[in-house]
């Protein structure tokens, strides 16, 4: 009897001790550092294939879709793509979610080996595709390219999309990212304003600066602006003009981190030209304004033109005044001996989607992409969010907004004369350095030569850094 309280106390103590240690051990192993599970590699669990199900996806396993809730919203997924997928695979349950913070939401799931099947990796907080590719987290999408297209079983998916999309979606030799949209850059203006004022779209640099002078003299609005807080908007323009002057090689050298690529003459010429525009024609305060503020000023008629991508019309749809009539024009000829002809545009497949290699049901993710790439899905997407896609001819016969129509016309005019650069996605630290330096270039704190030297230094640093995986394009 005398022993009883003691044993009870001991029991309590050991229980408390166990209670202290066990959860601690459990919590530790579930913390930030990844634990075990390194191997789970690509294992396509293909079932029986059929005409309706050429990839042979299991009809009883769920498919998780994560959409970036940004400029494009999530409606296109819930209203167009998901129902279309379901129409052929009624048994597959779709778990849909949307977030503005892709990396924060998903990074822990990748680290713990439980990623969602399908990810729309986009926005300022997207995951680093280079890092994901390096770790074998991206599902090989070659099967998608070789699969019959959704619309016509006799045509492969590969032949229904822009070839540049395949190039851009290839990381480390494998096509494993699907860039769905086709973004086109140019100088945006209000067609209504230009028509009223009798201003012509400039085709040469002299016409361009002449137009800027006219607007400046008139004094009712500023001639030009760009999103000063995000100098990407203007370095994009500088690089596209450089490519137009010197040819596609100029940007390839830059992407391949060639020494001297930034000091090449076309790049310096272009930087000098835009720096001059910056010094003479910018809207007051431009360097401190972001894209929303400058676009709003544009809508309000405080500025005549700004460089932007084809998403702008959709992004501004709530603030664009009636009859504004967005339109864009390609960069004017710098001299008559430019390497690329008039009409050359920066056109680049973007808005990345991938299937997680280590997810439970990757094939369903691939099948979902196949649905996205149908003409019907792409066309309705284009109407809904005013953004062109990589699906050829998806806009045919659709009712397009004025801005989108001018984008389509510009693309048609450009034909094969398109350019793009890839270092922004490949080497984010380099993008940040180019952006920072370009901001300084535009405010006159760096000469074009100093600007180029600074970026050259960063490029050399990245090239010499063995911890960063290098990419090349040919």
């Amino acid at each position, binding site marked *: 009897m005398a022993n009883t309280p003691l044993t009870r106390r001991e029991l309590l103590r050991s229980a408390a001790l166990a209670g202290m240690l066990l959860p601690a051990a459990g919590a530790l192993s579930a*913390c930030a550092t990844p634990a075990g*599970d390194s191997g789970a590699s690509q294992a396509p669990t293909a079932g029986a294939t059929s005409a309706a199900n050429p990839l042979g996806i299991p009809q009883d396993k769920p498919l998780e879709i994560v959409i970036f809730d940004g400029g494009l919203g999530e409606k296109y997924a819930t209203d167009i793509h998901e129902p279309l997928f379901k129409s052929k695979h009624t048994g597959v349950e779709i778990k849909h979610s949307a977030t503005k913070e892709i990396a924060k939401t998903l990074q822990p799931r990748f680290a713990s080996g439980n990623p969602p099947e399908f990810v729309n990796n986009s926005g300022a907080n997207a995951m680093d595709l280079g890092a*994901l590719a390096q770790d074998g987290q991206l599902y090989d999408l070659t099967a998608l390219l070789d699969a019959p297209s959704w619309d016509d079983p006799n045509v492969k998916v590969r032949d229904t999309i822009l070839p540049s999309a395949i190039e851009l979606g290839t990381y480390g030799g494998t096509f494993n990212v699907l860039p769905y949209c086709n973004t086109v850059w140019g100088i945006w203006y209000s067609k209504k304003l230009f028509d009223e004022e009798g201003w012509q779209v400039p085709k040469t640099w002299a016409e361009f600066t002449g137009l800027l002078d006219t607007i400046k003299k008139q004094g009712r609005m500023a001639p030009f602006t760009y999103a000063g807080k995000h100098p990407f908007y203007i370095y994009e323009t500088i690089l596209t003009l450089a490519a137009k002057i010197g040819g596609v090689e100029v940007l390839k050298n830059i992407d391949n981190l060639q020494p001297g690529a930034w000091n090449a003459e076309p790049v310096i010429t272009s930087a000098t030209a835009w720096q001059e525009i910056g010094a003479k024609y910018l809207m007051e305060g431009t360097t401190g304004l972001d894209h929303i503020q400058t676009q709003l000023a544009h809508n309000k008629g405080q500025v005549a033109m700004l460089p932007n991508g084809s998403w702008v019309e959709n992004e501004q749809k709530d603030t664009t005044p009636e009859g504004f009539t967005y339109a864009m024009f390609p960069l004017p000829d710098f001299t008559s001996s430019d390497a690329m002809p008039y009409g050359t545009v920066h056109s680049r497949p973007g808005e990345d989607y991938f299937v997680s290699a280590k997810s439970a049901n990757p094939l369903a993710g691939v099948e979902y992409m196949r649905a996205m790439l149908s003409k019907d899905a792409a066309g309705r997407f284009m109407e809904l969010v005013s953004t062109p896609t990589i699906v050829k001819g998806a806009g045919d016969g659709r009712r397009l907004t004025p801005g989108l129509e001018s984008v389509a016309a510009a693309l048609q005019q450009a034909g094969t004369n398109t350019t793009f650069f890839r270092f922004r996605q490949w080497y984010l630290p380099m993008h940040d350095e180019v952006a920072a330096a370009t*901001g300084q270039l535009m405010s006159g704190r760096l000469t074009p030569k100093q600007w180029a030297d600074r970026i050259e230094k960063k490029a050399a640093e990245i090239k010499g850094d063995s911890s960063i995986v290098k990419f090349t394009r040919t």
Partner: protein
Amino acid sequence: MRYHRARFVAGFLALPVLLYVVYVIAPYAQAFYIAMTNWRGVSATPQFIGLENFRRLLDDSVFWRAVAHNGVLLVLMPVLTIGIALFFAFLLNVGGTSGVAGIRGARFYRVVFFFPQVLAVAIVAVLFQQVFQPRGNGMLNSVVTALGLEPIGFLSNPDIALWSVLGVLVWQAVGFYVVLFSAGMASIPRDMFEAASIDGAGRVQLFFRVTLPLLWDTIQVGWVYLGIAALDVFAVVWVMTAEHGGPDSSTTVMAAEIYRNAFQYFRFGYASAMGVVLFFFTVGFAVVALRLSRRERVEF
């Protein structure tokens, strides 16, 4: 009885200590480990690379600029905040004409001064983006242009941006320290002020000879808090400035570089190395601050 009490105390402490170990100590320990790997955040098998990250850190000019900015904030933010807060608190408590009561409307001001503290930091940052608008119609710039001057690029001029950040940080912190110092002053016996003013002490003498020495403990605590806050500055810089710490890294701070390297460049190992450095800076600061400000305590 003594044994029972010890058990009683231990029983109460076990849970908090456990939570502390799991959620504070363990992640810290992990950060030290991650700092010695090349982990990119998604891999299941990070590679151990020893002190390589720290060696790279030595050559990282942006990081050292960030350290320098933290240094500037570490010196100026506590000085300005404590200075202004002391001044306001003194006026609110003993600054009245009689010398023993606050100025008229003290209660009202106390509430007003506290307002910034109530706002979330991110909201403050967005608010000040508007205040600092670079165009002539911006809140501050409309005053500047009314004076016939060119609009100032508060956040777009790299020579000015850091001062704008400092201004926001001080603006936000002052209110809390006004309240803290007011509480400290309220606990100083009234008769001390009365005795001093009967002896002919003016407001300045009251402040330096009576208030300051008796408030020293409170100020010291405020100093350490503000110093740590200055080393930890993040949200205001990240949300308010261009390029998250720009333009051209002119406002970046250690925490911003950690965030950028971890969540934008996906260099978790390298970012953890920065975190480890920041940890030692913070601990070092706390030790130094407490050492330096140790002073005879006035009993009352």
